[in-house]
């Protein structure tokens, strides 16, 4: 624990995304649309030991409380992630990610023959059939995507 504290200091205000599947912290940032150019202090810690997961990634975003709809998309690639909202060094809210029923415009359809991959002005749209194992059905071509299909995109 002492070793970890050296690596990652506590944040005063903001959001800590914990228990991210090891190696996917950068993908998590991409999925919630944080580029680093917003000006927030962002700490990315990768491949730290975890009792629950063996290894995990952590992302800390200072002075920014992530909104419900932003964080749930994380479940696409890190289904066991937890979100901690921190105010004045205290965790005031802790929640697990949960996918919404519909995913719009976050990922592409894995079917190269799908109309959404052909340059039409249309947003990819998926219906979440199951979260574990992940099954997303493309609203347009009906093809089912798995977690592997999603991960390949990040």
């Amino acid at each position, binding site marked *: 624990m002492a070793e970890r504290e050296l690596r990652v200091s506590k944040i005063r205000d903001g959001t800590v995304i914990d228990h991210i599947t090891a190696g996917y912290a950068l993908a998590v940032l991409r999925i919630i649309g944080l580029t680093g150019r917003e000006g927030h202090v962002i700490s990315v810690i990768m491949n730290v030991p975890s009792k629950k997961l063996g290894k995990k990634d952590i992302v800390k975003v200072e002075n920014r409380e992530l909104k419900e709809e932003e964080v749930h998309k994380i479940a696409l690639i890190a289904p066991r992630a937890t979100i901690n909202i921190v105010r004045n060094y205290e965790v005031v809210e802790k929640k697990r990610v949960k996918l919404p029923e519909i995913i719009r415009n976050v990922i592409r359809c894995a079917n190269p*023959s799908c*109309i959404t991959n052909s340059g039409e002005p249309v947003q990819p749209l998926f219906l979440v059939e199951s979260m574990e194992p992940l099954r997303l059905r*493309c609203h*347009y071509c009906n093809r089912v995507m798995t977690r592997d299909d999603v991960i390949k995109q990040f």
Partner: protein
Amino acid sequence: MRPFKGRDVISVLDFTREEIDYILDKADSIMGLASENPDMLKGKVMAILFFEPSTRTRVSFETAMKRLGGATVDMSEPRRTSIQKGENLTDTIRVVDNYVDVIVIRHPLEGSARLAAEVARNPVINGGSGAEEHPTQALLDLYTIRKEKGRIDGLKIAFVGDLRYGRTVHSLSMALSNYDVKLYLVSPELLRMRREVVEYTSKRIPVEEVDDLDEIIEEVDVLYVTRIQKERFADVSEYMKVKGSYRITLDHVKRMKEDAIIMHPLPRVDEIDYSVDRTPQAKYFKQVYYGLLVRMSLLALILGAVE
């Protein structure tokens, strides 16, 4: 049951069994209705927007519309015109939608008909979307089974050939899962039915995947044959190997039940021997006529000429 007027026909999954049966019932009476009122679709115009070559489906839709007194605008090769100029499907649909009352679309990409239906104000009928779906073919296939066998429930039905890329078998197996049937899927390993179709169908009806036609030929009531396309195989010798095993000959017909039927979405190349055409089991050309009735029924319902 939701009213049919103004509805799109994109996937067989858009219809309940009750609605499918209603469309087929209407197909039974549509010729009579059309002779009583040959102008029931007078003043209505249908656009045929085919981005892929087709003869049968296009002619079938065109004839269906004309037999009900409607008119058609054939834009069968849009590639030569707007598409060549770089126009996307969305804009093409928006433009065509202003001219007509119903659009029939065939497009090589999957999900294309769904997108077209979202863009168009008027009803859109999917005339084949990539390897995905061909709902009107599935409806006419159900109608053929019902007409020739007197029922759909209780039958053993086998699909033979290319089940992976054949869109007709995707739509038909999903449509059949509304009924009490047993489905055999007979194909070479490489051309097995798409997983999502098997998953969907096998939750609702018994489905068995079989390598060898001989295993099931004696017990099936309906043999639905599709073409195995050479271009699906990377290696021509692989194609030559499997080709013969899924070819229907008189020898197969002799082993079939006397009242079994053989269907095919056409075009046939050589997967059904010509000698089979003369047997009472061969229904693939009758299937074409049933297709006309089903498409007439759909157009009349969707355009509100009948209820």
